């Protein structure tokens, strides 16, 4: 039994202190990078260990006399917080080590300033996770949004990045507004904004549903749920790669945390249609994200859309959990929640790995466009081989981690036909079909990502000078790749940890006594089982055996020769598939989902130019009309702006009269 909460607070304070220390010598790379960021990484690691130890313990609370008078900060550490703190700590540790070697003096803001924003961001996320009243939650939430806004706009001299940052801030605030309203509903009429008070309030009639919808909208905006996803593919590519990794790996998960906290902890009961709504919305987001990922040409945008896909899968898992919980099938709910949390953890690891790998590629080549990369496995073997682990994990292939959580989620879907409503029983197989379609397309995206960047021949001559990642970057990539492998190989142990959250939120656990350490069998061994260790051992065993037998029995002679390619003589690297080319079949099949702008050259063009752009319909159907309406209203309001002092005095006078009339 350890007293974990003070240690978490110490970690938060240490991160803030490190951030402040960055301002002492902001331009000194050795000091900021090697000293401060590595210390920050160490604190992340310690936080992960503390959270792991706290996972099995009962909730601890503390009241900090900070903030406004009579309004202290309530903090609480329970299993749900501990799980997400572990995710934050473990991911932050790797990303901080990467950052230690990543930031360069010449680019954008001073490294010391970045160090401040980065560590404030980390501390704010940790605060969100342990907040136990709406006040500190919103303060931490907004600090998180602002810190990440400044990180996104690091290269603020580029107009697109300023625009991306603005869009991000705008949607973050729409989301924050919804969350604030949600807390307003949740407090009932007590005026007490501690989470403890909210738990004990019973809301009448439609209010719980309104609270849930507000939470879904508010946290969905942060997570990138349809239709509030538009900021994500803009902000992620704009930010420096470690920040993209942190935002995609951890910040999106704080939104998942918030949704879980409100739905399962603060609200007393769940209704079945919330689950259906979350399920449908999540799957729509997943399919949307993966379809757009297939047609992207910028490697970080591609990963951003892939994050939208994964968040969709996670929210679909939450929907399924709500559905089961509302019918009191707690064991099934526990499986669905386990799959959800497991996928959140997996996504944090493999997406951080991939974003960091793009960071190394970006540094080595100064190029983000897939069409100008290629063949980097020869120049950057470390990055390429470690990124392969992330690619396979993200594609959901055994024995890596992405597969386990998808497997669990599919099992949860398969157990469904025991619900009392027949149309839900009809919906669930369709949802399972949509999920596997998204997963299969995810593999398509990942082959494109990896194949175009790391395989093939370099598409540009300057790629020959690309250098491999530095020491710090390698350590970080190894950390995440090892995480992907271990999380994939030992699902029983991971589920043992996640069960603490299941027990807290649902009162049921997936682990049973007598479960063997190597065999994952969630309900019982006759229904379904999967053993990644055996799959790996047998596959590698057969592989080594085959190599041995083939070499002994025959020979191992090997000659190197030029590429054959059906004997086609004049080949250039430009004949390989580009990113557009690789995504073209998907773009053609799902043409109506994209808003496609094409320029085809005519045969008589002296300088033929071809381009195709796959845009987002929602941008034109939803966002532009809203923006135009806002402008139109602003113009209407502007009419009363006369610029003459007498008019303004008149307005004040009329307002005063109206107020007097009302309060009379």
């Amino acid at each position, binding site marked *: 039994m350890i007293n974990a909460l003070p240690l978490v607070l110490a970690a938060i304070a240490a991160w803030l202190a490190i951030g402040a220390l960055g301002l002492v010598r902001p331009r000194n790379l050795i000091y900021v990078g090697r000293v401060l960021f590595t210390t920050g990484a160490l604190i992340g690691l310690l936080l992960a260990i503390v959270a792991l130890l706290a996972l099995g313990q009962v909730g601890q609370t503390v009241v900090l006399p900070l903030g406004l008078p009579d309004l202290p900060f309530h903090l609480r550490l329970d299993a749900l917080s501990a799980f997400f703190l572990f995710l934050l700590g473990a991911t932050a540790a790797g990303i901080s080590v990467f950052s230690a070697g990543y930031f360069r003096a010449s680019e954008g803001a001073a490294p010391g300033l970045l160090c401040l924003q980065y560590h404030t961001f980390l501390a704010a996320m940790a605060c969100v996770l342990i907040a136990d009243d709406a006040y500190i939650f919103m303060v931490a939430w907004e600090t998180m949004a602002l810190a990440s806004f400044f990180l996104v706009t690091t290269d603020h001299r580029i107009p697109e990045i300023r625009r991306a940052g603005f869009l991000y801030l705008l949607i973050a605030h729409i989301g924050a507004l919804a969350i604030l309203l949600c807390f307003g509903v949740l407090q009932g009429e007590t005026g007490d904004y501690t989470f403890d008070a909210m738990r004990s309030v019973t809301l009448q009639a439609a209010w719980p549903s309104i609270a849930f919808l507000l939470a879904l909208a508010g946290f969905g905006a942060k997570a990138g749920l349809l239709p509030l996803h538009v900021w994500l593919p803009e902000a992620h590519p704009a930010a420096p790669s470690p920040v993209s990794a942190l935002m995609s790996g951890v910040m999106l998960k704080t939104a998942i945390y918030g949704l879980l906290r409100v739905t399962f902890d603060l609200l007393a009961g769940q209704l079945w249609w919330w689950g259906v709504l979350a399920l449908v919305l999540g799957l729509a987001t997943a399919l949307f994200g993966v379809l757009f990922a297939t047609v992207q040409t910028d490697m970080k945008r591609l990963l951003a859309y892939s994050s939208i896909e994964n968040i969709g899968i996670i929210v679909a898992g939450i929907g399924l959990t709500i559905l089961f919980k509302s019918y009191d099938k707690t064991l099934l709910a526990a499986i669905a929640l386990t799959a959800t949390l497991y996928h959140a953890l997996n996504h944090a690891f493999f997406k951080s790995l991939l974003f960091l790998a793009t960071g190394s590629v970006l540094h080595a080549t100064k190029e983000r466009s897939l069409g100008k990369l290629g063949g980097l496995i020869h120049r950057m073997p470390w990055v390429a081989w470690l990124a392969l682990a992330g690619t396979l994990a993200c594609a959901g292939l055994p024995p890596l981690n992405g597969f386990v959580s998808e497997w669990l989620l599919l099992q949860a879907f398969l157990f469904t036909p025991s619900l009392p409503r027949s149309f839900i029983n009809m919906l669930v197989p369709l949802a399972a079909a949509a999920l596997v379609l998204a997963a299969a397309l995810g593999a*398509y995206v990942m082959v494109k990502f990896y194949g175009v960047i790391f395989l093939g021949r370099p598409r540009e001559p300057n790629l020959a000078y690309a250098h491999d990642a530095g020491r710090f970057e390698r350590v970080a990539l190894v950390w995440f790749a090892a995480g992907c492998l271990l999380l994939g190989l030992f699902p029983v142990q991971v589920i043992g940890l996640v069960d603490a959250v299941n027990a807290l939120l649902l009162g049921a656990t997936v682990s049973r006594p007598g479960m063997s350490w190597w*065999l994952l069998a969630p309900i019982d061994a006759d229904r379904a089982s999967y053993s990644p260790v055996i799959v790996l051992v047998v596959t590698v065993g057969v*592989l080594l055996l085959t190599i041995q037998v*083939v070499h002994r029995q025959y020979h191992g002679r090997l000659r190197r020769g030029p*590429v*054959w390619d059906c004997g*086609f003589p004049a080949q250039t690297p430009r004949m390989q598939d580009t990113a557009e080319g690789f995504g073209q079949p998907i773009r053609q099949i799902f043409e109506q989902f994209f808003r496609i702008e094409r320029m085809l050259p005519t045969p008589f063009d002296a300088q033929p130019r071809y381009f195709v752009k796959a845009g987002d319909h929602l941008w034109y159907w939803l966002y532009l009309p809203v923006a135009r309406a806002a402008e139109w209203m602003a113009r209407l309001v502007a009419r009363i702006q006369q610029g003459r002092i007498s008019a303004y005095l008149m307005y004040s006078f009329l307002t005063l009269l109206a107020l007097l009339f009302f309060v009379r």
Partner: protein
Amino acid sequence: MTAASFVSQLLQLAIALLLAPLLLGWVNQCRAWLQNKSAPSLLLPYRTIRKLFHKDAVVAENASPIFRITPYIVFSAMALAAAIVPSLATDLPFAVAADAIALVGLFALARVFIALAAMDLGTAFGSMGARREMFVGFLAEPALLMVLFTASLISGSTLLPTIVETLAHREIAIYPSLAFAGVAFTMVSLAENARIPVDNPATHLELTMIHEAMLLEYSARHLALIEWASALKLFNYSCIGLALFFPYGIAGASEDWLAILVATPVLIGKLVIGGFSLALIETLSAKMRIFRAPEFLGTAFLLAVLGMLVNLLLGS
């Protein structure tokens, strides 16, 4: 888990490894007969593999280790799949390691690696083949999963041995959900094994090939392993189909040695008929344009989902 189950496991794996090229030879022979050609020897696939093993491997100068390791990975994945699919017996120690979903995952692993290897050299045909293979896979894989889900819903388990045990001990009748699933499975198997009408295994006509385009750069032992793995894949898909739709004759968990001895000729008999049907389908249909493939596979996907819904609605 007993010694006997390990023996039947190894026996099944050995038979799969040995018979897989024969099945390919049989299909080619039937096709030649049906198309009024003189048939190649039944043993031609073995001779091809043996010949390839003896040759010196030629690997392109800019090939990365991914290119060289892929044949081994694909072969291992297919061998593991052959150990999991109950073709002779249901008492298989390895089968608990991977259920139907993990089996599809293994196929996907092999597909992703072979696509990556095809992109590795940066040739025009290689990346075209990789793109098309993933393109076929992204619809075929979900359809296959849906077929397996239908069977899982009937038997209440995703473990293939349990599915076979349940299906084999039901009253023999035409179950509507399985009928839908069967049609979908046939279509998926054609696509996944690069057969007509989606792909043509005999083609080297550059613009129409899918699977072959990815293998163009492979030679000698690497090509031999991939050819063998392709044969194994066909064998595995045939065995999945037999296990789901004709599960009779597979030795159950409670049965003894004799059952396995009986199961072997039964399996061979079923494969002989299955191989002939495959050749018949290939003879009767024409290869379709690549952009018709999504319609074909989309139909398979919808049929599989329909099978699952029918099962939920009618309970059969």
